[in-house]
Each structure stands twice: as structure tokens, then as C-alpha cells.
């Protein structure tokens, strides 16, 4: 037993087949589906945002929300609820969703691992761990100084996972990476738990944030992260074409003029900025980067640029919807948004594992 490989099941280490060799520009039908999906996705985003502003322990009708937003004749507490409480938290949900979705899509392109997600790879835990350390050891309290710690934590885990998993998209490497991400996440959050139990003052600071709950978030937490999310998102969008070439194979991509090393480094930078920022502003929210890129691929096909665009629109819808759900699932209080996405995302993970051929979404 000691010498049996951990993750190589009997006769199962078939390499995942290469992505279907559809050309990146796959005809007008795909493009029409993509445009339609983007339009519908955008409508869903507006709807989800509107719901996020009106649903809660004090439900507000749409007109009331609108009057509060536009400075019309709304009651003062409606204005307070909408402008001071729900608008910042919903905007954070939107930004965090966008960042997590794009980070997941990038991670899948980078590793060719269909199960890559900021949660599954343990990136969220890496960021959380260093943020917890920054609070407890260095007494960091400003949202801005959380960010560099989040980036270092994300990058550290990403590099570690990459070393453990290697680059091949074989079933054994996928299983190894998934397990390593889970184990690293468990270890890091175990240490955070132990540290918070020892240090009760830090416990109260970290508890709300670590539960991935968006309750009580303010603009001050969001603003410092915005530039980094923006840079990451722009990088993600511009890398799409290179990843299309890379899906044909490294050699072919090189002959098409893609600098493979540069693309990988930029993608790693973008994943770090996006996943780190999202964790810093919203806490560890899992599975968004797994679900949405696979959904996007199912709609628009294998063109990474379209997958990125659709992921950017649909991921915020998911996080906003999960946040709204979290507010109505309990008679008193809220279910943290991270719990809702974990519950929704796990079946997707199972469904992907049950497929015969494993293909990354992007």
C-alpha cells in the first residue's frame, strides 16, 4: 500500500483529450448565441442588482429604491438602507463576482485543469491566511494594506499548487491539484482558527470577514481594490486570443507568434490580482470561478475571448443572487454568501468529475 500512487486510479490515467479543434472564429451562429447571451446576461445582472437593493430584512419596493438612488422623495431610512447599506455591499458583490469568475477562467486556461477555481486551488485560503496574519501579527486595520498581504498569499499558494500539480492535464494531476488545494486550504484555515482562538480581539475583527458574509461592508473596503481588479480584468480580456492559440498546443501557438512564457506570467499576475482583491473585499467565496466559466463555455463554445466576456457578466449575477438568497434563507440574520455559492457550486464539481472526458472551460 505505501507504494501505490495516491491519485492514479486503476488504468484511469488517460490524458484528457485536447479541446475540440473547432477554430476560434466558429461561425456566425456561435457569435449570435454569444451576443444574445451577453445581452440576456446583462439584463440578468441589472435585475439581480435591483433585487439586491430591495430585498432584505426591510424589503423596499422598486419605486422607493429608485427614489432613494436618484435623490427623489424617499423616506430617510429607505435612503439610509439603500445608499449606506445595500449599495456598497451589492457593488462589492458585483466586483468580487467579476474578479472571482475571471480568476477561475484564467486559472483553467493556465492549468488546463477543468476543476480550477480560486476556492478549489486554495487561493482564497492563501489570501485569507495572510490577511489574518496581517491583522494579528502586524495589526493591519486599513483595507488598503490588506491587499498586498492578500496578493502574496494568493501567489504563494498558486506557485505551490503549480509545483505539486505539474502542467499536464492528466486525471492524476487534476486529482493531485484538487487534493493539494483542499489540504492547503484546510491547513491554513485550521491555523487561522487556532490563532483567532488564542487572540480574541482579532477573532471579532476576522469573524465576519472570514465567513464570506457581505453584511456591513462599506465603500472604504471596496475602493482601494478597484484599480487592481480593473488591471486584472483588462489583462484577462486581452489574454483571451493568446489562450485560443495555446489551446491548439504550445508549438503551434509559438509558431503563431505567441510568447508562451509571457502569457503564463501575465495570467498568473492577473489571477493573483483578481483572486487576492476579491478575497480581501468579500472574504473567501468559493466555486464561482468553477461554475460560471463552464456555463459560459456551454453557451458560447471554446473561444476563450467569448468565455471571458460572458464570465465577466454572469459571475456578478451569481454572487448577487447568492447574496440575496442568503438574506431570505434564515428567519433572523443571514447566511453568508460564501456558504450559498459552496452549496450551489459543489454539484457542478460533481457533474464535471462524472464526465468521461475532462476539458477545461477556457
Amino acid at each position: 500500500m505505501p507504494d501505490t500512487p495516491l491519485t492514479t486510479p486503476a488504468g484511469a490515467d488517460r490524458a484528457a483529450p485536447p479541446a475540440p479543434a473547432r477554430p476560434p472564429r466558429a461561425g456566425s451562429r456561435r457569435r449570435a448565441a454569444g451576443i444574445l447571451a451577453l445581452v440576456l446576461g446583462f439584463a440578468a445582472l441589472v435585475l439581480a442588482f435591483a433585487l439586491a437593493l430591495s430585498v432584505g430584512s426591510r424589503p423596499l419596493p422598486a419605486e422607493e429604491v429608485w427614489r432613494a438612488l436618484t435623490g427623489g422623495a424617499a423616506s430617510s431610512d429607505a435612503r439610509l438602507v439603500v445608499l449606506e447599506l445595500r449599495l456598497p455591499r451589492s457593488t462589492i458583490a458585483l466586483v468580487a463576482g467579476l474578479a472571482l469568475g475571471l480568476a477561475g477562467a484564467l486559472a483553467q486556461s493556465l492549468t488546463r485543469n477543468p476543476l480550477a477555481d480560486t476556492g478549489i486551488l486554495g487561493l482564497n485560503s492563501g489570501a485569507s491566511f495572510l490577511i489574518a496574519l496581517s491583522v494579528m501579527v502586524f495589526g493591519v486595520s486599513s483595507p488598503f494594506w490588506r491587499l498586498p498581504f492578500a496578493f502574496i498569499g494568493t501567489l504563494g499558494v498558486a506557485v505551490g499548487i503549480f509545483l505539486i500539480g505539474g502542467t499536464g492535464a492528466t486525471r492524476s494531476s487534476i486529482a493531485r491539484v484538487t487534493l493539494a488545494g483542499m489540504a492547503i486550504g484546510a491547513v491554513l484555515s485550521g491555523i487561522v482558527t487556532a490563532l483567532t482562538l488564542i487572540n480574541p480581539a482579532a477573532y471579532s475583527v476576522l469573524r465576519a470577514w472570514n465567513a464570506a458574509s457581505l453584511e456591513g461592508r462599506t465603500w472604504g473596503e471596496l475602493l482601494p481594490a478597484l484599480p487592481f481588479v480593473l488591471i486584472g480584468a483588462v489583462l484577462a480580456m486581452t489574454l483571451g486570443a493568446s489562450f485560443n492559440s495555446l489551446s491548439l498546443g504550445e508549438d503551434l501557438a509559438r509558431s503563431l507568434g505567441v510568447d508562451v512564457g509571457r502569457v503564463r506570467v501575465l495570467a498568473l499576475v492577473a489571477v493573483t490580482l483578481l483572486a487576492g482583491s476579491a478575497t480581501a473585499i468579500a472574504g473567501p467565496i468559493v466555486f464561482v470561478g468553477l461554475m460560471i466559466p463552464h456555463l459560459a463555455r456551454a453557451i458560447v463554445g471554446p473561444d476563450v475571448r467569448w468565455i471571458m466576456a460572458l464570465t465577466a457578466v454572469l459571475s456578478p449575477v451569481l454572487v448577487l443572487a447568492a447574496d440575496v438568497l442568503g438574506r431570505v434563507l434564515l428567519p433572523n440574520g443571514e447566511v453568508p454568501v460564501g456558504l450559498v455559492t459552496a452549496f450551489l457550486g459543489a454539484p457542478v464539481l460533481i457533474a464535471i468529475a462524472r464526465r468521461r472526458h475532462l476539458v477545461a472551460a477556457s
Partner: protein
Amino acid sequence: MSAPAATRRPRRAQVPGGSRARRVVGLLVLLLATAALAVFALGLGDYPLSPGEVIGAALDPGAGFKRTIVLEWRLPRVALALLIGAALAVSGALFQSLTDNPLGSPDIIGFTSGSYTGAILALTVLGAGLDGAALGALLGGLATAGVVLALTYRRGIEGFRLIIVGIGVTAMLTALNQWLLLRAQEEVAMSASIWGAGSLANSSREAALTAGVGVVVLLVLVAAVSAPLRQLELGDDLARSHGVRTGAVRISVVLLGVALVALAVATSGPIAFVALTAPQIAARLLRSPGLPLTGSALTGAFLLLGADLLAQHAVPGGVPVGTVTTVLGGVYLVTLLIREARKTW
């Protein structure tokens, strides 16, 4: 549950094992080490006792206060750590043997979380007491086992799919458990979440006695299926030709493995990674060709007691033992994965 014989990996029987003498010596060393650690643990605390004093107090009925400290205050917790460690480790060995995969252990493939779900449901929704929680844990574990195995099954149980499905089910159940705890009334949620992190802090004499009886009964039953299980490890066809009823053996192994986990969860909450690591460490220590059940039990007992000592004394203020096993077991798992990654490169 069996893959076609042709696709099965060459069985462990072909891995060169150590000699029988080495295994006997190894078991004796494990036994002595565990006993020594237990004596040491009984001496630790606000009123420290030397190993000699501990043994004297335990044997001498007239030792008075020291006897009370050792037998009444400290023994229940030490005994529970040993019993639950052994139960988890044997359960891990059973499932790892059945799935033919070191990672097919109940804490990875979701059975532990499922047992916890069952216990929480019994406590918070049905308002049951601790007996009800134990029954709930058993049913929850069995239901989860059924769901995980059904979702994994596709012309056999493939290790990759089992692990990923298990991780998914674990993630879902963990979210569900936290929602249930949030939903429950405060005081019930408190009692359910006290052992939520996996803790031996509430050890009582009664709990130790109940767990002790349960673990002993289950281990005797495990011993009864261990011979046919060994045959099964050599392959289905060979086992069948020796008159083993493979289906019946597999079902009883699943039942016993889940029952051991459920007992552990109902007593102390979900304690991660003991079931995963103990059989692996035992197999390495004993150079055993298969997974050694007795060796796993002793290793698990030693590990959990050691982890509980760390949890109580190494961290100021103390932490739940589940936190310690999670951190140490997780590091062990990562090391295993790194070593395997090196091999494939």
C-alpha cells in the same frame, strides 16, 4: 463496486512486505509507545504527576486524591482519545482497502461530514438527545455513503471520481451544516457547534464507557470480516474461488466503517485526517503488504492522543483537537502529494 478484473491495478500482495517478525515487533513497539503516551498524558495538567505516581495511583486503591485525579478527571479524556483514534483509523483502513486508494478515507470522501449532518439534524430539528445524535450520525453517514458511491459508480468505482465527488459532497454538506447551525435556536446551535470543530473537551465517564463498549463491539465485528477482506484485496475472482461472498463482505465493510465514523462523530464531532493518515503511517511502520487493521488502530489511538495533548497544552488556552489534526494531517497529505509529484516528473 468492482471494476473489471483486467483494469485493476496489480494487487498489493505483490508489493514486497516485511517479515512477520518485524510486524509483531512493530505492533509491540506501537502498543508500548501508546501506553507510555497514555501514562504521560494522565500525568499532565495543573497538578502534574510523574509516570511512577500515575501508575501507583491507578493501581493503589488507597491513593486518595491522586487516584481521583488520574481515574476520575483525566482517564475519561485519555480513554476517549484512544478509543476514537482507533475507531477512526480502523474505519479509514477499511475504506482505503475497499476502494483500493489511500485517499478513499471517510474524511475525504464526505462520510464524516454526512455523519455530522445527521447528528445536527437529530439535535436541532428533531430535538433529540445524544443517543438520537448517535443514531442520526449513523443514518447520515450511511445516506452519504450511498449518495457518494452512487454518484461515483460507473462501471466500477474509479479512484479519481470517488475523490472529486467526495470533495464536492463534503463542500456541500459543510455549507449545509453551517446553515443548519445558523438556523437552529441559539442554545441548541451552541451544543451542536461545541463538538463541531471536533473536540474531546466534554469527555465524561459515561461518554467514555459508551464509546468504549461501542468501539469494542464494532472492532470485534471488524475482526470477523478481516479475513474475507484480505481475500478481497487479492482480487474478486480469486476471492470468489475461495468461497468469499464478495457483495456481502463489501456491504458489511461499508456498514462497519460508517458505524465507526458515526460513533466517533457522535462522541466528539468531526475530527479530520486521522482516518486518512493512521492506516498509511501504520502500513509504513510495519512494512505490511495490506493495510494492517490492528496496527492502524494503535497508530490512530497514538495519533489522536498526541494531537489532543498538543491541543490542550501546546497552544495557550487550548484549541479543539480537530484543529490540530486538520493542520498536521493536511501537512502530511501535502507532503504525500509533493512526493508523488516528484515521482511523476
